[in-house]
């Protein structure tokens, strides 16, 4: 239906008020919440993610789009089945122990949420055993580790090792990211994936859990 384009446009341009107005209007026309989420909102956030990945969009605009997305999801939530909001999968995310930086990690969490994942954000300075417990308790398919400092990168390796010794490693995919992290480093610590930015992180997450 033609309204998808306008809904998507409102989301991509970060116009929360307009988006919510159109979401309510579309619901009133009898369209299901699930369709609005899957046909308009998530595909629109995919576009945002892609533009972010290509450095075609300003981050403050990405933040506005994500904010609009969560406002729209708040409207849809009571009308959705429990598993509609975690359709893409369940993610546990955090900044590794010893590292207090969270701007990048928050961006990734937000983009993943917008891409249809249920995200459990453990915050910063997260110990390996905390990651393990959260992955187990939440039934996560994906564990995402963030580090900004070269000095805390080794903690990523230890966290992967903790997942291995707990027997969870085969049940989850591990993604790593942060300014000093590289694809080669990810491979060297036996992580499943690396993404250089939040847009490509969400995309990679989808491909890893499919």
């Amino acid at each position: 239906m033609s309204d998808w384009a306008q809904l998507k446009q409102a989301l991509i341009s970060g116009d929360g008020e307009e988006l919510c107005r159109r979401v309510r209007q579309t619901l009133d026309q009898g369209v299901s919440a699930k369709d609005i989420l899957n046909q308009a909102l998530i595909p629109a956030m995919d576009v945002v993610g892609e533009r972010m990945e290509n450095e075609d969009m300003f981050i403050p605009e990405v933040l506005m789009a994500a904010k609009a997305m969560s406002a729209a999801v708040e409207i849809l939530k009571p009308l959705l089945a429990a598993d509609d909001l975690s359709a893409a999968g369940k993610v546990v995310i955090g900044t590794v122990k010893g590292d207090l930086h969270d701007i990048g990690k928050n961006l990734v969490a937000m983009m993943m949420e917008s891409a249809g994942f249920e995200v459990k954000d453990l915050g910063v300075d997260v110990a390996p055993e905390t990651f393990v417990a959260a992955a187990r308790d939440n039934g996560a398919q994906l564990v995402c580790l963030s580090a900004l400092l070269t000095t805390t990168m080794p903690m990523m390796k230890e966290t992967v090792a903790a997942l291995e010794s707990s027997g969870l490693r085969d049940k989850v995919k591990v993604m790593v990211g942060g300014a000093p992290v590289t694809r080669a480093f990810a491979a060297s610590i036996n992580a499943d994936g690396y993404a250089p930015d939040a847009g490509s992180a969400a995309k990679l997450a989808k491909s890893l859990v499919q």
Partner: protein
Amino acid sequence: MKSKGRRGGIYRPLTQDQVETIHDAALTILERVGFTYESGLDDLLEMLEGSGARVDREKARIAFPRSLVEAQTAKAPNRVILYGRSEDSHLDLQDDLVHLGTGGAAIKIVDPENGTARPSTLKDVYDLARLVDKLDNIHFYLRPCIPTDIPEAAYDVNVFYACFKGTRKHVMAGVNNEKSFHDVLELAALLADGMDALKARPFFSIITSFAISPLKFCTQSTRIMREANRHGIPVALSCAPMAGSTSPITMAGTLAQIHAEQLAGITVCQLTQPGAPVLYGGIPGMANLKTMGYLGGAVECGMMNAAIHQMAAHVGVPNYNSAGLSDAKIPDAQAGWEKALTIVLAAMGGSNYVHHAAGMLESMLAVAYEQFVIDDEIIGMSCKVLEGIPVDADRLALEVIESVGPGGNFMTSPHTMAHLHDEYFEGNGITDRKSRPKWEKDGAADAWARARRLVERLLSGEETPYISESLDRQIRERFEILL
């Protein structure tokens, strides 16, 4: 012709009214918003409280009354001399006198062998010092890259050693802690023939990034800064917010916040040691809001760095700032225009100590040997602009015009010979002015390739022994030198 120390102040992006408006806004910020801090600064809090600042320990906030800031800022010297280890390399920082040189903490260097970026090493810090020593328009050597090949604990002493060994010019760098500061002080005292001689004419200075923008004291750097104050070593009060992420997106807002941060830093230094030599270290920059990285090559960086000198001059403190950054990855045309514009604007503004002005690429992440040679040329030309056009009887050449007469030519006139080498900028040889056939015969090299040849030539010469063998032995007995 020396390019160092020429007078700028011929480009003033802010009117006097605007300068006063921004100054007033900064005082309001310090009074109403104030600074925050983390643990480890109890002695600072006590000192500030005892001087009339209001400290709210629950909220971790320090409010600076106007009268305190104004009284302390007035104590800062309006002239700071940064010495070199030769008579021709001292820097007289005051008024609108301009000096430009290297700077940064790049972690990569473009390898001249293959043109790709690799991690920078201690040998690079030394070889770049040797290169800069031979480039006349680079007036000081601030370590431009990090020695990624040695343990972090060994950085400070080894970086200063590599700099001192490679060049006679004034050396500046940061240190990681107070102990390192004392190690470097001791190393320099060995070279100066004693601590008293060193303190009388310090040939090194320290960058102290005391402020984490916006408006927060960095514990470690503030402690180092105050330790340097107590020992009479000049400090550059570096703070470098990025418009859009760590300061307001607007230029005026960024200037106001930086000015507030600087006034707080100067106040702390002068309370610690009245009359301590400090450089106002506001470095206006921009955030790349598509990647959250740093943007250095934008033309507005040149405009804002000229403006921040006006703010420093308004409080009578010599300033340290930036120009010549580029977001290009290699020494290409974009690097050329970004550097030329920002350097000439900062120089015309009258900035006293412009770092980052040579060698930098990739938004501060990389340096390239060739770029230092190219930037030496850009700095030389920018300083030439400051000289203006002298008009006197000799230069006006009325008599010469009369004697050559209508229809003649000036080729062999003694007046032409007299000014052949002093009227126009003569560079280091990197600028191509050959005919096309001659250029083609020489390999049709672009600026990058020509710069590579020049680097090879300059570095292949014999190494100048800036540290004697006996002194070197003494240093190596005392410190673990990894070069």
